[in-house]
């Protein structure tokens, strides 16, 4: 008898294995259909925008599309001396087409970013074309060079050639205060103009310290929440969550009321004689304000994961540690603390990642020394309309977060994270 090896059949003769698989397949399809809307939603709201952001950040096709003939003619130009007659002719015909469609302004702006001074000379050229001052039977090269001495400068033509590739990393370099020099190598911008690097470092610094402050304040609160009897812990929990339910803007505004020079906190300091009335410390529109407001706003994100982890730690473990001879500190450090690490990891990662991309609070209370990289991104989205640069910095921020996540995974292990 070898019943194990014999195939088991169902009553209608199909092997049991096959019909089980069939039944399972149905369930799998059902399960997939259930999550399909969410997957679609995620794709539309998450994957697609990030992809769009990426293409935008490296997209440099505008000039390529505007000057197709020019770039074709430039292929044979070595780029060392002034380009030959064909390049000028091709450029003239491309530009004329743009003028007829009245889109040459964009080209001027774009080229001006590549090299200062393009705006003036393209406008001059446009005016001449509009007034039909260019004689197409004569040498185009001579006529264009006569319009402005910059047209006779090889550097300007090199700049046009540099915009030829449809994709560029220039925005990313700019985000790190670097640029492509005339010869195509990567160069640093002048020291007094390096603003982005300062912002990146400041963002990291503020996120790090906010995380540390949140941890130092959140750990005891979470411990208290987890160990107090239910009726008190519920009240405390509401106190922790109340700010969570209040509008971010309202909370930031209330910090402004508290922290300003004539504000409540300063008034109190003056009242108890800590500071002189005419020497009130500035606590807003600088880093102090950013630290204070962000720590308060992000605190629940630290407290909640810590609380949920601490809630699962049996109080008898601390008792066991003490009864075995550990002082209260040893029992805490060797028994309780290691067990809260999953919560610490989750809380710190959450707060750090949120802090690194924080926008409204630093914008309102940060002032000049308390703004973060996200404020710079917003500035480029709203004021300069340089969306590709904003996208590039956004992606740099995103990859920074992913790197932190990766490092965390290597050090602690993401499986250890417990959010609830």
């Amino acid at each position: 008898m070898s019943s194990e090896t014999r195939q088991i059949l169902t009553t209608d003769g199909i092997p049991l294995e096959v019909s089980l698989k069939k039944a399972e397949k149905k369930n799998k399809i059902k399960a997939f259909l259930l999550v399909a809307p969410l997957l679609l939603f995620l794709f539309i709201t998450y994957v697609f925008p990030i992809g769009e952001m990426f293409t935008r950040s490296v997209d440099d096709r505008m000039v390529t599309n505007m000057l197709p003939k020019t770039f074709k003619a430039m292929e044979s130009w070595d780029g060392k001396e002034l380009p030959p007659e064909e390049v000028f002719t091709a450029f003239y015909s491309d530009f004329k087409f743009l003028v007829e469609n009245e889109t040459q302004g964009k080209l001027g702006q774009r080229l001006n970013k590549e090299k200062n001074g393009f705006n003036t000379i393209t406008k001059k050229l446009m005016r001449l074309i509009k007034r039909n001052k260019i004689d197409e039977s004569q040498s185009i090269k001579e006529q264009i060079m006569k319009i402005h001495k910059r047209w006779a400068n090889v550097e300007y033509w090199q700049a046009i050639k540099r915009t030829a590739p449809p994709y560029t990393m220039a925005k990313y370099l700019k985000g790190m205060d670097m640029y492509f020099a005339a010869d195509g190598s990567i160069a640093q911008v002048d020291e007094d103009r390096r603003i982005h690097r300062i912002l990146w470092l400041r963002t990291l610094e503020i996120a790090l310290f906010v995380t540390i402050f949140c941890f130092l304040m959140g750990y005891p609160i979470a411990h208290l929440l987890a160990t107090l009897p239910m009726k008190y812990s519920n009240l405390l929990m509401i106190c922790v969550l109340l700010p969570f339910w209040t509008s971010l803007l309202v909370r930031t505004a209330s910090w402004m009321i508290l922290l300003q020079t004539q504000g409540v906190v300063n008034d109190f300091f003056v009242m108890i004689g800590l500071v002189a009335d005419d020497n009130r410390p500035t606590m807003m529109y600088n880093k102090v304000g950013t630290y204070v407001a962000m720590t308060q706003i992000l605190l629940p994100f630290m407290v909640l994961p810590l609380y949920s982890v601490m809630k699962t730690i049996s109080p008898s473990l601390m008792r066991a540690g003490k009864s075995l001879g550990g002082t209260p500190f040893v029992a805490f450090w060797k028994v309780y603390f290691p067990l809260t690490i999953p919560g610490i990891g989750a809380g710190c990662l959450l707060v750090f990642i949120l802090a690194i991309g924080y926008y409204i609070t630093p914008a309102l209370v940060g002032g000049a020394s308390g703004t973060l990289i996200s404020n710079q991104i917003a500035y480029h989205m709203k004021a300069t309309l340089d969306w590709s640069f904003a996208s590039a910095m956004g992606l740099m921020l995103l990859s920074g977060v992913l790197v932190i996540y990766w490092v965390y995974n290597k050090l602690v292990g993401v499986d250890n994270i417990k959010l609830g």
Partner: protein
Amino acid sequence: MSKNPEFVKFDKVDKSYDGKVLVVKDLQLDIAEGEFITMLGPSGSGKTTCLMMLAGFETPTNGEILLDGNIISNIPPHKRGIGMVFQNYALFPHMTVYENLAFPLRVRKMEKNEIDKKVDKALSMVSLNGFETRMPGQLSGGQQQRVAVARALVFDPAVVLMDEPLGALDKNLRESMQYEIKHIHESIGVTVVYVTHDQSEALTMSNRIAVFNDGKVQQLSNPSELYEKPVNSFVAEFIGENNTFNGEVSDISGEKCKVKLSNGEILASAISVKSKGEQTTVSLRPERALIEPGETMDNMFSGKVEEVIYHGDHTRVRINLLGNPEFILKVPNSTSNLELKVKQDIKIGWNSSDARALDPK
């Protein structure tokens, strides 16, 4: 070495959590060195509170606790040197078995090789050698329990407290662990204070049992005395099965008394009744009453069989006797078993020495 009969001493200990209700009332309890004493009682009877006061996690409201003659009420738990096994084991889940056992030794700053030796000894005591590198989560309930016992003993404490340590185990495992803990106690001679609400556990393991109810020790005696000679009706009810008759003492002479029931009169031993006219509850163990007794007994009555339940090794018979429809009899399973039928009238007899007239319920 002479054993100290007052190794652990509760001296007039009161405990109240809220200042209104006394959870433990005027507790007076001496525990001898090397003794296995069990605190037995229903939940809320104050037994765990006593244990926690001894361990140092609760402070007595009144009175003193002495360990080997020294007052320990003001010593924090970690300086008492008392081992404890917790209800849910309380093994440190992030440490291996070895690290769990080494914890009490490391905090005492012992040498590494001495720690190794002691851990090895403790593990062999609970026959868990080779489990050093396992995490508690990888062990079965019984194994975790044994690690917890080994951890409580590894630093050679003078007293080990056990707070319902077997509560989470299934019946078979619980029974084998009972014997194992008993044997460990016998072989190393440590003083054990054991808390449980399971009376069979208490009867199997202990030298002495303190039955707690309502914050008081109702009776403190060895298991057989507790079972055979309960001093009040609570103990009689709580330990083992029990048949009771409520009535009034109609005559008392020496150790015997007559108790008048609503429809009859029985003879009993006078335990806590002193005079005629007192209300009393007479307690009788089911196995002490016999069906159709061969010899003459001083209590002989007839009753009607109400229910017969087969239990394998014995048969339980419920009889309506003297107006008590809940009178239980245990008939051992033997070849000469009587054929019992429901509604049958049978004769029941017992000796008055087995019927104890206690305080009224």
